[in-house]
């Protein structure tokens, strides 16, 4: 009897979870199906999760769109440069900060400074004007330097480093290894899950950022991909400042026509490519970094 009810409950739970998982993907699957569908079918709402009038027209137009690929290139450059800077800075800050104040006098001062910078900011306008003053507008450095210190990642990695057995470091010290060699030969090799986690976060953050590109890049050829796509969507969505239903219907039709589902899908590819490799690390990475005594 108990066994029977248990099995029923199990089946219900499995079904609910399956439905939830499907709903998590459904909007994206719908866009994917639209991107492979014919124009008429896509615009008249016939497409659900399978393409109607399958064709590659949308993707052909993406391939021939030069500014799309220019922006794609800016994004790739930003991810490589920004991701490398983030990782370097994170490792170099997390290691000394993982020491106790006794072993590294001054550690707490640095820590408070870092936390203060994370929690308080001058707001958008002063931030913009600072970068303008530095002469970084329209430079790739404007996209990677202001975000060079990912404080959250530093804390994550620092907490992981704190859990590394002290004996390892002492043994390295006996062998005459200095701080740099200890970091590189002892700490880094055993922190790969955490390093993968912080790298995933910073790469995704750089790939997904659009706002800095939008306000700091005046020239279209310097826009990262997300800014480029944002301009496509926003420029269509925000002209809908009419309340006339017929007008809105016309504009919203035009929007689904103009909003290029294929571009959205192509811009997701890099995330999809790194996600499976890194996702098996990040859960353990976060948990190890977050749970501490």
């Amino acid at each position: 009897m108990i066994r029977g009810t248990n099995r029923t409950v199990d089946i219900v739970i499995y079904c609910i979870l399956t439905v939830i998982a499907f709903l998590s993907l459904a909007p994206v699957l719908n866009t994917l199906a639209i991107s492979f569908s014919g124009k008429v079918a896509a615009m008249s709402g016939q497409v659900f999760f399978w393409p109607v009038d399958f064709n590659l027209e949308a993707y052909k137009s993406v391939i021939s769109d030069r500014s799309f690929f220019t922006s794609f290139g800016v994004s790739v450059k930003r991810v490589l440069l920004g991701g490398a800077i983030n990782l370097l800075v994170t490792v170099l800050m997390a290691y000394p900060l993982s020491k106790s104040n006794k072993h590294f006098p001054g550690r707490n001062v640095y820590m408070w400074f870092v936390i203060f910078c994370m929690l308080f900011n001058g707001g958008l306008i002063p931030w913009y004007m600072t970068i303008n003053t530095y002469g970084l507008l329209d430079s790739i450095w404007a996209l990677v330097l202001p975000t060079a210190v990912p404080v959250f990642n530093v804390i994550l990695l620092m907490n992981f480093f704190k859990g590394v057995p002290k004996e390892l470091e002492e043994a390295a010290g006996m062998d005459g290894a200095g701080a740099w060699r200890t970091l590189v030969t002892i700490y880094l090799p055993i922190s790969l899950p955490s390093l993968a986690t912080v790298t995933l976060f910073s790469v995704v953050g750089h790939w997904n950022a659009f706002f800095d590109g939008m306000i700091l890049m005046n020239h279209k050829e310097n826009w990262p991909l997300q800014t480029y796509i944002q301009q496509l969507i926003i420029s269509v969505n925000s002209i809908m400042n009419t309340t006339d239903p017929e007008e809105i219907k016309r504009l919203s039709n035009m929007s689904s026509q103009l909003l290029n589902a294929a571009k959205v899908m192509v811009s997701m590819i890099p995330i999809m490519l790194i996600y499976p490799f890194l996702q098996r690390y990040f859960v353990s990475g976060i948990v190890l970094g977050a749970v501490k005594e």
Partner: protein
Amino acid sequence: MRSRASIWNYHLMLLPGILLLIAFSVVPMFGIVIAFQDFQPTLGIFHSDWVGWENFEYMFSLPDSRLILGNTLSIALMKIIAGLTVPFVFALLFHEVANIKFKRTIQTIVYLPHFMSWVILSGVLINLLSLDGIINQMIQWFGGDPIMFLQSNHWFRFVIVSSDVWKEFGFNTIIYIAALTSINTNLYEAAAIDGANRFQRLTNITIPGLMTTVILLATLSLGNVLNAGFEQILNLYNPIVYESGDIIDTYVYRSGLLEIQYGLATAVGLLKSVVSFVLIAASYGLAARFANYRIF
């Protein structure tokens, strides 16, 4: 001697990060003086006229200020409540599953939307919610009239909150799932021997075991009551729904960078920064005191 050398190296390692923080976090903090100036870009910070609290007075005299604060608070609070409860329920269901492979698959899928940008998801949502989109198709099947979700002050906040839940609930379960794995499995065995059924085990072991985490997350979310989700709203709103969807951050962006009212925008931003800072500091203090939680 060696230890002094390594301390020297520790300072050296921190140097690049600290310099970058000074250049891009500390220096902009001095820019907040603009909030007290009649700032003219041609004159700059050093030559613009000081106006005292005028920008702040002007801010509170604006008819929109109450509306914007109200929108910010209501959207943020709805997000906080939904963001705590939905992952909680999901984690409870998830915990009941024994099949590891099924669990892995579900996790992989539900974490995914977290890694997509609001730009991309706005594109997806605008498609989905358009008059010919899949949602309105379904409404029409059931005999309803199509709804212009993103052009309706009635629906806009609901769309914002539910799409945020959709994007983040999976990722937010990570912390609950971590807490669940730390519950001692002996408790379940002992309860089973005492004849506790599944539901009793849920209410007497699993839920109490998660309570500390829930309270901790609720406390920490206090710092977010002024964060209604700038990137999301910026990508989904339009002038028709300013009435229900305009928030502090979008207002600062529009008034400052589009309408070039630097003084006003800086004042609004500064007020938000200060209030947020106090709230976050208070929430960390509470969390450290009652849940023994320290992030550093």
